[in-house]
Every structure is written in C-alpha cells, then in structure tokens.
C-alpha cells in the first residue's frame, strides 16, 4: 500500500482515510479496554441499579393510579397475555393431535409430497451435488 502511495504521489485525502481507519481501531481498543475496568463496571452497576429502581417505582405508582381509576395495570395486561399464550399452546397441542390422527399409518414417515399444500412451487428433489454431476459428465 505504502509503495503504491509512493508511486502515485502523496494523496492527502487517502492519507486522511487511512488515518481514520487506524485512529478508529486504536481508539476502540483503548476505550473498550478502559470500559471493562473494575471502577467502570462498578459505576455502570450503580447507575443501572438506580435506573432499574426508578423504573420499578414508576411502574408501581402508575399501577396504583390505574387501579384507582379502575383500569388494567401493566401486571394485568401481562397476566392476560400469559393466558393467551396458554390458549395458543393448547390450540397447538390440539392441532398436533389432529395431525397425528390424520396421518394414521403414515406416522413413521411425515406427510408425503402429495399431501402437502400444492399452491407453492414443488420442484423435484433430485438435484445432484456438483461432484456427482462432474463424475457423470466424465463418464
């Protein structure tokens, strides 16, 4: 690279681009290394504790407000969501059971090509790997 630059003559813009690359690499290394020191970790831990506690208090206050005006709180919404997930899981189990019953004797082998939806393109599953194709061609 240096040889090429010398051949072309000095290009200030290219030199700036190279400086940016080098500077980015070195600064990243130095700053990332410093961020993992014990004191930085301690400080980050303290800040996150403060923010998480503030978040928790905020939710508690709003929860009380919603309860007072007879509206669902965040916990209520999450509880409803969990119930919906359980219903979804139950439906999946029912769907699976129905599929297994329908497959009957075919259970050993999953649904055949003929049984699956036909609205999507279904190319033949006969493609040969390049080595096999090359061997065939050589013969």
């Amino acid at each position, binding site marked *: 690279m240096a040889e090429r630059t010398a051949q072309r003559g000095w290009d200030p813009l290219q030199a700036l681009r190279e400086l940016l690359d080098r500077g980015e690499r070195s600064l990243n290394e130095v700053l990332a290394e410093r961020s993992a020191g014990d004191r930085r970790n301690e400080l980050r831990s303290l800040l996150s504790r403060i923010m998480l506690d503030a978040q928790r208090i905020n939710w508690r206050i709003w929860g009380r407000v919603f309860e007072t005006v007879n509206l669902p709180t965040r916990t209520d919404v999450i509880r409803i969501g969990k119930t919906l997930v359980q219903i979804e899981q139950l439906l999946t189990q029912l769907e699976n059971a129905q599929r297994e019953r329908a497959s009957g004797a075919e259970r050993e082998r*999953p649904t055949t090509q003929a049984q699956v939806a036909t609205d999507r393109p279904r190319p033949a599953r006969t493609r040969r790997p390049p080595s096999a194709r090359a061997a065939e061609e050589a013969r």
Partner: protein
Amino acid sequence: MSAAEATEPSLGDRVRQEVDRLLQRGVKGFAYLRSDAPDVGLSPKDSIYSRGTLSLYHYRPTTHDVYRVPVLLVMSLVSKPYILDLAPGQSLIEFLVSRGHDVYMIDWGEPRPEDSGLRLEDYVLDFIPDCVERVRADSGEPDVSIVGYCMGGMLSLMYAALHPNGPLANLACFTTPFNFDGMGLMKRWSDPKHFDVDRIVDTLGNVPPELLVRSFEMMRPVSRIAQQIRLWDNMWSDEFVRSYRVFDRWANDQIAFPGECFRQTTKELQWANKLYKGELTLAGRRVDVKRIEVPFVHVMAEHDHIVPYAAARELVDAVGSKDAQSIVLKGGHVSLVAGPNAVRRMWPALDLWLAERAT
C-alpha cells in the same frame, strides 16, 4: 513512461474527481435524508407455521430441481433474521435458493412481555423440534440440515446434542460461542461482582433491544462516528450508500432478549461456562456436544468483536463428528454472513458443503 505512471490519474484529474464527488455528496446527501429506509427481506417466502411470535418460513424455490435434504435456518434470538436476506444480490437465502437448496427459516419474532419466562429448554426441546417436524412434514423428507447463526447456532448445537438419533442430517454453525471464557469484553462487563442479572430480569422482564444495541456499540465506541464520516466520504457511491443503509438498519433493529433465557445464558454459560465444560443440563438432560456425530461445519470470523475467535474456535474439536471442519474468514460478526467476503468465499463454501451432503 512506466505502465503504473500511464494508468495513474494526474494531479489535475484527481482534483477534478474530488470536486465532482464533493458536488455529488451534496446532491445525494439531500436525497439520502429524504428517502425512506431500504426494503429488506425481499426473497419470496410463505409462512407455513406460526406459534406465538415464532414464524416458520419456506422460501420459494427458483430452480427446476432441488437437493433432497431441506435446509432449516435458525436465527439468533436477539437479531432480526433479514441479515440473511438483506437485499437482492446481498442475500445468503437468495443465493442458497438459486443454487438449488430448499430453504426454511425460523424467525423467533419479537418476544412479548408474557414471553419473558421462556428458557433455553423451550427453544431447544420444544420450538426447534416442533419446527423440524413441520419442515419434515412440508418437504416430505425424513431428515433436515440445520444452519444456525450466532446464538441460533448455539441453540442448534444444543438441539443436535440432545437429539443424536436424528432427524438432523447436517449441522452448520456461524460464529457460535462455545467457550465463554473467550468472550472478551462481554465476559468482563458481565462480571458477577458487578452485573446484577437478577435485578435486570426481575425488573424489566425481557431485556430491551436498546440495551443490547448500546452494549454492542460500546464494544467499538468510536465506530459509530467513524462510520458517519465514511458515509459522507462515500456519499457519491450509490452502491456504498445502499449497502451502508441496509447494514445500519439491521444493526439498530435488534430485538428484546427473553428475560429468563438471558438470566440462564448469563449465569450458566457466561459465568459458569457450562456448555464448554459439558455440565449444562436442560430439563435434566446433559448437553454433551460429543454426541453430535452428523457432518459439522463451523464458520468463524477472524475479527469478530461480538463472538471472538477465541470463544468459537474450539467447537469443531469438541463435537463427535468425524466429518467436522471449520472455516475462518477475515472480517467481523456481520460481514461474515453478508459482506463482500461472505459473497465471495463463505456462500460458495457453504453451498458446496451442504450440496455434497444433501442427497
């Protein structure tokens, strides 16, 4: 006059070129600010199954015949899956489909607050096996190849170790962490002395994507500014800007980490390194990667700052497969699957590896 001198532009030409680029930067810069976010994930696909936030997609074949064994892509829990299908010509999925592979993909979706209780067990012993069965049913084939990216690779690895009797045919992992002692900065930031994972999960439920994005940015604190400078410098190049925009969109478009899974990953993998030590148990079953005997390939990036090479390199020797190999490429965590080096080297290598084992 030498050949080099003949082809090199003169000082006058270079000045003219820079002035031209300066003008284009101004014109295209305005267009950049006014334009919408780029479209991503454009390869034609059908959703064949959904469950909660999970969607299983089948990509429409574009060749008149396909390899017998279907390929199931397993995404990371915290990244949007369109990194594998960024844009036409910059899409691993489009490439695999064009080379005759029958491709399916698990998109985990964005976890809802009620999904905060999901654990590794749910993914490894329930969701992945369920999707594998759906792929078998849809394709009509008894076996499936799995390709896992980053954390998706780790989940696939656990699935393979706990289902040694099939129906897995081949396993390919990309930048999959295995020895968490090699996780570098991530390991030091999550030092149990300071990092209160219980407080985070108990308060927030799912770990918000902003926290993940900032953590990744903190690993390279200057890169954001440097990228902005590079963007301005290359604003004249439509190709550079297009590529920058799709990568930038993806990098800032992470998804929340399900809380319990984050707690488990931090305590059992990051702190206790149980996967590497062979001590990890899921629902009472020990995850022993030695039990993986299907053909295995691990693609790693030499300069990966998220999953460093040190955390990934030992995996290939740890699995029990006789047919096991690793591919190490120059580049980083993202460029490994979607950068120019991926297009030139990784995609063809993966295609060939899968093709030779897909009949």
